[in-house]
């Protein structure tokens, strides 16, 4: 039994009368893709928020790589090896694709209190940035385009490259397929699959094709509680999950 890299125990988050995360325990093992599914408003994004450090839980703990990070700041967790993508992509809209990734590389390279040397022609930043864009198959022709002029698909991929720049041990992906067309979804699935064996992933997604294609394990969240955890087959066969969430696709 390998040590999980992320261990969530007894996590609780309340919004007024609503318990969005209800005594939730969960773990993610090294290298696995762990999908998190559940009805809308089940508390998936709220959980991601707590893992990332944007939302402070009311109770429970989050252990990451053996550190208790329950109260750590976002950047502190990122420095430890956490990477996340957003449900709505967050990028630097006025910059080029390359500049975005280069900045992420820079952030990973240590502190940025360097005031003199020009950064925009610094190969120590640009070379790794290009490599990352290659890794996610970002078309070279578009690397000098400004983010503001990019399509939804390009942005999603670019964001992934930025996340990877941090050399994360765990990726938190909140609806990476959202906003992608059918074709782009397939390519994104391939890209994620290609990363397998690298960072572990906690994947929130409503696109079941992608989930079943990628996930090693799946946890189903309903009303803030994990009602089932298991392999794709187990979950697909689970009648409770069928009723609460899946339905016959396209019925």
């Amino acid at each position: 039994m390998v040590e999980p890299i992320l261990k969530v125990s007894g996590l609780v988050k309340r919004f007024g009368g609503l318990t969005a995360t209800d005594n939730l325990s969960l773990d993610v093992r090294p290298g696995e893709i762990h999908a998190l599914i559940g009805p809308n408003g089940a508390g998936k994004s709220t959980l991601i928020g707590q893992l990332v450090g944007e939302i402070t839980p009311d109770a429970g703990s989050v252990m990451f790589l053996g550190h208790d990070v329950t109260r750590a700041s976002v950047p502190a967790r990122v420095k430890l090896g956490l990477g996340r993508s957003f449900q709505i992509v967050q990028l630097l809209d006025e910059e080029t694709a390359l500049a975005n990734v280069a900045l992420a590389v820079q952030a990973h390279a240590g502190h940025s209190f360097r005031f003199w040397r020009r950064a925009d022609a610094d190969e120590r930043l640009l070379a790794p940035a290009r490599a990352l864009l290659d890794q996610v198959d970002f078309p070279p022709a578009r690397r000098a385009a400004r983010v503001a002029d990019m399509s939804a698909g390009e942005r999603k991929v670019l964001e992934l490259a930025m996340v990877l720049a941090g050399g994360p041990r765990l990726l938190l992906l909140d609806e990476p397929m959202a906003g992608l067309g059918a074709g782009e979804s397939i390519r994104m699935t391939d890209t994620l699959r290609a990363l397998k064996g690298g960072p572990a992933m906690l994947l929130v997604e409503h696109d079941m094709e992608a989930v079943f294609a990628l996930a090693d394990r799946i946890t189903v969240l309903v009303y803030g509680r994990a009602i089932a955890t298991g392999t794709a087959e187990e979950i697909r066969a689970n009648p409770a999950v069928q009723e609460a969430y899946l339905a016959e696709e396209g019925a």
Partner: protein
Amino acid sequence: MLQALGLQAGYGPSQVLFDVNLSIAEGQVATLLGRNGMGKTTTVRAIMGLNPARGGTLTFRGEDIAALPPERVAQRGIGLVPEGRMVFPTLTVRENLVATAADRFRRASPWTLPRIFALFPRLGERQNQLARTLSGGEQQMLAIGRALMTNPWLLILDEATEGLAPVIRAEIWATLAALKDEGLAILVIDKNLSALKRLADRHHVLEKGRTVWAGNSLELERDAETVRGWMGV
């Protein structure tokens, strides 16, 4: 009901639509298909007057709407569920639904709060919550509800099932089928081809701002390979 011929539009100096042709008949469901960035949303914005048409014609129920400002277009009976939801974050769920509600054409059975809450019980539970704090899917439901509350002739759904759980998605398709039976015309943009095929009467494929293919579901089945190519699948 809605017809676009040779529609052109863009953003500032850059032109995005070059030749979009589109037609939806009374009570019909039509789709706009195409890869990311091909101009589907821009077409919708051009129809709504948000990015005014720079060329071509645009008629709705026999009236030229190409030069109308958005509010006039909407007042003529087009309801929009925009890409990215765009719910009003600082309003409560109930306020979001009420603020722009209208029954301009005196429907026999207009959409009301109770009907919306029956369709999306989740919204009923969250009536007084600020829309900003809703989950992604809940916001999507709200955007759909909000458009229905304007009781339009034509409903435009731009990726309206994005981020919805499969059960809810299935429910939306069922609702759209029911609405179609009530005589509502619908223009859908969605990546869920199989559901669209069953629901829609007519499909349009966009490629780099041009309508490159149009036809009914049967024809779509027939030309599946070509269309798949355009869709990048």
